[in-house]
C-alpha cells in the first residue's frame, strides 16, 4: 500500500470523526514500546495511537502503528564453524557458512486501522474493522466483523466474529521469493508470495456472580498460499555438523489452526483487588500444539493507582516438518524430505516461554490514565542451535478523554 493510499484512509477516517454531535466523547490513547533481546538480536520500537469517538450508539476509532525493527535474527542455518562452502559476505569479503547463522535487518512497518461499533436496541452490538500495513517485505490487508448478543436478563453474551486477511510476502532486497528448498548457491527466484486467511470465532461470556465474569472462545482459522519465510535457511550437514550446503526452507501451502480460550475475571469480596486468569489450548495441522496460561493480580493502591504483577507461561510442540538440519547420505548428498517441506526456524521448534512482569497504573485526573509495564521474556528451545532467547519489554501508555 502506498503512502498516498494511507493518507487517503486517514483523511476518510478524519472526515468521519469530524462530523460530531455535541454529545460525542473523545479519547486519545497513545503508547510506546521498547522491545530488546539479549545478544544484540532483535530490537523493536513501536508507537501506537488510537483516536476514539463515542456517540450515543456508535463508536468510531482510528489506529496508527509505527514499528522500527532492527538487529540480527537466527536464519535456521546451524552455527558450525566447519564448512565445505565459502560465500562472499555482504561486505565483499569471503565468508564461511557459519556467518549465515544470523541475518541482519533494519525495517519499518506502518499500519492504519479503522473500527466502527454500533449498539442496536435489542442488546446487539456489531463491530466492523479493517487494517492495512506495509513494511519493506510484507504487505497486509484485513477486515473483520463481529456480532455480540446479550441474553435476556443480561446473564451472558454470545459472540460471533469473522476475519479475512490478504498478505503479500517477498524479500526486501529482491522483491522476490527463493525457490523452496533450493541451494543458496544456485537459487532461482520466484515472484512474490500471496496468502489469504479466514478466521472464525465463536464465544460466550457469562456473568457468574456480581464479582465474576467468565469467557470461553473457540476459533478456527484457515490460511492458503505462501507460508514460507523467504529469509530462513536450513543447513545440510553430516553427523559432525560439517556443513555441505545451505538451502532455503519450504513450508506447506496451507494451515488449519484451532484454539480453545478461556478467561476468568474476579474481584475479591474483601477488597477492590481483582484476578485475571486465562488459558488457551492451540492445535494446528502442522503438528504444533501449545498451552498458554496467563495470570494477573491487580492490587488497588488507591482510587487512582494500582500495581499488577503478571505471569505468562507457554509451551509448544515442534512442527512436523521442523528439523535442525538436513541429513546427508553416504555420498554426502543432502537428504531432501519426500514432501519437499523442511524448516529449521527456531520458532517452530519445541519451546517454552516464561514472561514475568509488573504493570503500574495511575490516573492523574479522572480523564487521564498512565500505564507503565516492565516485563522479562525468556524462551528455551529444544533442538535449535540458538537454544535460548531473552528480552526486556517496556511499555508506557497514556490516554486522555474529553
Amino acid at each position, binding site marked *: 500500500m502506498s503512502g498516498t493510499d494511507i493518507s487517503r484512509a486517514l483523511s476518510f477516517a478524519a472526515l468521519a470523526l469530524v462530523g460530531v454531535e455535541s454529545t460525542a466523547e473523545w479519547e486519545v490513547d497513545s503508547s510506546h514500546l521498547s522491545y530488546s533481546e539479549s545478544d544484540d538480536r532483535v530490537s523493536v520500537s513501536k508507537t501506537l495511537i488510537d483516536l476514539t469517538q463515542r456517540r450515543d450508539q456508535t463508536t468510531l476509532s482510528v489506529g496508527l502503528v509505527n514499528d522500527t525493527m532492527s538487529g540480527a535474527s537466527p536464519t535456521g542455518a546451524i552455527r558450525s564453524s566447519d564448512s565445505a562452502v565459502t560465500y562472499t559476505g555482504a561486505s565483499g569479503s569471503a565468508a564461511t557458512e557459519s556467518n549465515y547463522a544470523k541475518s541482519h535487518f533494519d525495517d519499518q512497518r506502518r499500519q492504519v486501522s479503522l473500527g466502527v461499533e454500533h449498539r442496536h436496541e435489542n442488546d446487539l452490538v456489531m463491530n466492523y474493522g479493517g487494517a492495512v500495513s506495509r513494511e519493506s517485505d510484507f504487505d497486509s490487508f484485513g477486515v473483520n466483523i463481529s456480532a455480540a448478543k446479550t441474553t435476556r436478563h443480561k446473564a451472558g453474551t454470545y459472540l460471533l466474529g469473522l476475519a479475512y486477511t490478504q498478505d503479500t510476502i517477498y524479500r526486501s532486497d529482491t522483491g522476490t521469493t527463493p525457490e523452496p528448498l533450493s541451494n543458496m548457491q544456485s537459487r532461482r527466484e520466484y515472484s512474490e508470495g500471496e496468502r489469504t486467511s479466514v478466521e472464525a470465532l465463536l464465544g460466550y461470556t457469562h456473568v457468574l456472580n456480581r464479582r465474576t465474569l467468565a469467557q470461553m472462545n473457540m476459533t478456527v482459522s484457515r490460511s492458503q498460499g505462501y507460508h514460507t519465510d523467504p529469509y530462513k535457511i536450513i543447513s545440510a550437514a553430516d553427523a559432525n555438523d560439517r556443513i555441505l550446503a545451505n538451502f532455503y526452507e519450504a513450508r506447506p501451502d496451507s494451515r488449519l489452526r484451532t484454539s480453545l480460550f478461556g478467561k476468568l475475571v*474476579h474481584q475479591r469480596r474483601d477488597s477492590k483487588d481483582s*484476578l485475571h486468569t486465562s488459558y488457551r489450548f492451540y492445535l494446528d495441522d502442522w503438528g504444533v500444539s501449545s498451552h498458554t*496460561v496467563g495470570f494477573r493480580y491487580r492490587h488497588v493502591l488507591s482510587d487512582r493507582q494500582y500495581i499488577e504483577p503478571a505471569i505468562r507461561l507457554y509451551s509448544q510442540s515442534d512442527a512436523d516438518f521442523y528439523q535442525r538440519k538436513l541429513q546427508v547420505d553416504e555420498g554426502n548428498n543432502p537428504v531432501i524430505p519426500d514432501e519437499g517441506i523442511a524448516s529449521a526456524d527456531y520458532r517452530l521448534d519445541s519451546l517454552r516461554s516464561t514472561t514475568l512482569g509488573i504493570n503500574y497504573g495511575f490516573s492523574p485526573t479522572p480523564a487521564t490514565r498512565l500505564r507503565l509495564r516492565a516485563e522479562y521474556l525468556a524462551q528455551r528451545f529444544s533442538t535449535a542451535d540458538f537454544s535460548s532467547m531473552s528480552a526486556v519489554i517496556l511499555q508506557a501508555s497514556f490516554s486522555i478523554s474529553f
Partner: protein
Amino acid sequence: MKSHSWHQVNSASATVANGVNDRICHRSRVGNIIALVFIFLLTQSGCSTFKDIIETEQVKPWQRGTLARDDMQLNTDRMRQSVDDHIYFSKEASTGGSNVQGGGCGCN
C-alpha cells in the same frame, strides 16, 4: 536429490535433543515454581476466594456496579493486548484465541 525416507532425519536429531532437554526441564521447573508461588499468594485468602468465584447468582441491574468497573473488563488495556499479540505472534507458532482481527505482519 531425494534418496532416503523422511524418518531418518528424526532419529538422528533425538540424541542432540536429549542432552538439551535436561537444561530445558531444569529451567522450566523454575517457571513452574514461580507459577506455584503466584497460586500460593492467590490462595492466601483461603478457600473463600475460590468459593466466591464459583458461586453463581442471577445479578440484578443494580448489582452490576462492580462488573462495570474498568478493571473488571475482559480486556483492560487494548494497547497492551495489541503489543502482546504482535510479540507472541513473532516469537511463537501459536496465534489468536481472544479475538479476531484481519491484518498481520511479516514477523513470522
